[in-house]
């Protein structure tokens, strides 16, 4: 039996060989974590590099499970970008270690701490959903552009030109969002969603935001949260609550049912895009498209 054991160990050593991929890459490869980040970086580098996301569109970063070749993707990448602010969970630690042998960019590292929302004094109690504030996200993109140029100076002309026009588009998006949302908050509406992802959105565009669930997808809504929320909806005559793309709508449906039992008709709108972009061919396949879609859904549902 022990001979068999040694044999198995030896075969595993031998088997740890793979056929090498003969195809050569024509362009440098940039690997990023989320689909939202991938879209931003694609806008910056244009045709100069291939951008690959570890978490494809439609995947909740909380539920991301690495597949066997993700490691190869990371190790073969020329540049790796990650979101930071603990969005990648336990992987953040690993990314920091990857900086030993890779060019690594944490896109959120330059955002001033006073602009970040945090729930407690702990280092990791910061809310990572900065892309809901277009201004903060454009800061992150600006930082990414600067770092990319540092890593590969030959890209300077391409990236600075792309970055300039992308920043202009983002500024326009920010203005358009502000215009619509201000109108909503004038009519005393609030944004009610399944989990607490929209805090930056509320702060940046001046609308009250309530989430049914905490930041962790594990924490379930408490009973007091539910009754308190229903009371709030009836008092303020809120027109709609919103489901989210990557989260089961069950809990938020309970809010709708609860309101109906109080004779308050409310619409279940959405689903809004939160932690991931939509189908790449669709409207919400880009970051700008996603924000546009979200804002128009929120506006249409709450304005009547």
């Amino acid at each position, binding site marked *: 039996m022990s001979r*068999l*054991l040694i044999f198995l160990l030896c075969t595993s050593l031998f088997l740890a*060989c793979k056929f090498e991929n003969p195809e050569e890459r024509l362009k440098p490869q940039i690997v990023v974590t989320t689909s939202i980040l991938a879209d931003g970086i694609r806008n910056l580098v244009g045709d100069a590099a291939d951008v690959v996301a570890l978490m494809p569109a439609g995947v909740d970063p909380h539920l991301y499970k690495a597949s066997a070749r993700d*490691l190869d993707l990371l190790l073969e990448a020329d540049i790796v970008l990650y979101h930071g602010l603990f969005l990648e969970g*336990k992987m953040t*630690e690993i990314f920091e*270690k990857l900086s030993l042998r890779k060019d690594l960019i944490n896109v959120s590292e330059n955002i001033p701490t006073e602009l970040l929302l945090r729930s407690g004094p*702990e280092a*990791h109690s910061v809310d990572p959903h900065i892309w809901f504030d277009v201004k903060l996200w454009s800061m992150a993109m600006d930082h990414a552009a600067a770092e990319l140029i540092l890593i590969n100076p030959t890209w300077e002309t391409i990236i600075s030109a792309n970055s300039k026009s992308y920043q202009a588009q983002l500024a326009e998006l920010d203005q358009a969002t502000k215009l619509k949302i201000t109108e909503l908050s004038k009519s005393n509406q609030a944004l009610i969603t399944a989990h607490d992802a929209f805090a930056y959105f509320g702060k940046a565009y001046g609308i009250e935001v309530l989430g049914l669930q905490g*930041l962790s997808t594990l924490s379930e809504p408490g009973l007091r949260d539910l009754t308190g929320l229903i009371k709030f909806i009836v008092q303020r005559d809120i027109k709609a609550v919103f489901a989210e793309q990557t989260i089961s709508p069950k809990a938020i449906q309970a809010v709708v049912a609860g309101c109906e039992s109080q004779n308050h008709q409310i619409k279940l709108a959405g689903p809004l895009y939160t932690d991931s972009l939509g189908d790449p061919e669709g409207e919400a396949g880009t970051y700008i498209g996603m924000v546009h879609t979200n804002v128009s859904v929120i506006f249409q549902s709450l304005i009547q």
Partner: protein
Amino acid sequence: MSFDQNAFLIIITAAMIAISCGLLGVFMMLRKMSMTGDAISHAVLPGIVIGFFVSGSQRGLEVIIGAGILGILATLMIDWLRRKARVQLDASIGITFTLLFAIGIILINLLAYKVDLDQECVLYGEIAYLPIDLWLTKSGLNMGPRILYLSLLNLILVTAFIILFFKELKVTSFDENFSKVIGIPAGLINLSLMSMVSYTTVSSFEAVGAILVVALLVVPPATAFLWTRKLKLLIQLTIVLGIGISIVGYYLAYLFDSSIAGMIVSVAGIAFLASALFKSKSFLSRFGTSRQPESLKKIV
């Protein structure tokens, strides 16, 4: 063809964890406590929350220690319920882990509502990223993959424990009363086995994630049990199975570009089903005819 160091690292670590879990799993199975690993995977939650509040960080060592303490506490509670409250063993496992998990959820709701905190993002590791999760010393020296050391240490401790206490473990697993008669402290042996299981599961959760650990504790011993009833052979077969499924699982995962842990568990499950089908005749005759009358005789 070229030697892929990362593939080798992943396979060798998975095999080491499979051996540690399999060795303990054999004795857990004989004691009908196979699901303790699953219970521990849930019961660690309050330890994580408390560890988080002690350290103020999701990555602190306190979180791992908190998880480990809760793991031991859970096994103690299971044992206590079984002995003192005279509850069925499976029920005592169910009561313990649901209670501790529920306490963890309440603690999150009360204390950490605004923090992304659960076992998934704090404790469970990802085997695919093991080769880049390096151990860096204070002086910045690169010592290689961190998990490799942790699982090697774990394997050495588990193997030493099994070899040193083999006789005691064997006797207490089969007949607790007899072991007391011949002077073996069954309670102490039981407690040390449970602590070993708790340490192994928490250490391996951190390395490769929960589902793989729970499966490795249960499936290889159960598969080996279909082929033999001799304890030594059972242990050897479990070890071989553990190594085999790690190798096959990794390559299938690579082939289909899917989760490594998921694929290893699937391969283990298929190996068990195949064994069960192959052995179904003798399986049925053993459980269907010869076994039951024996146990009935005892009662009569």
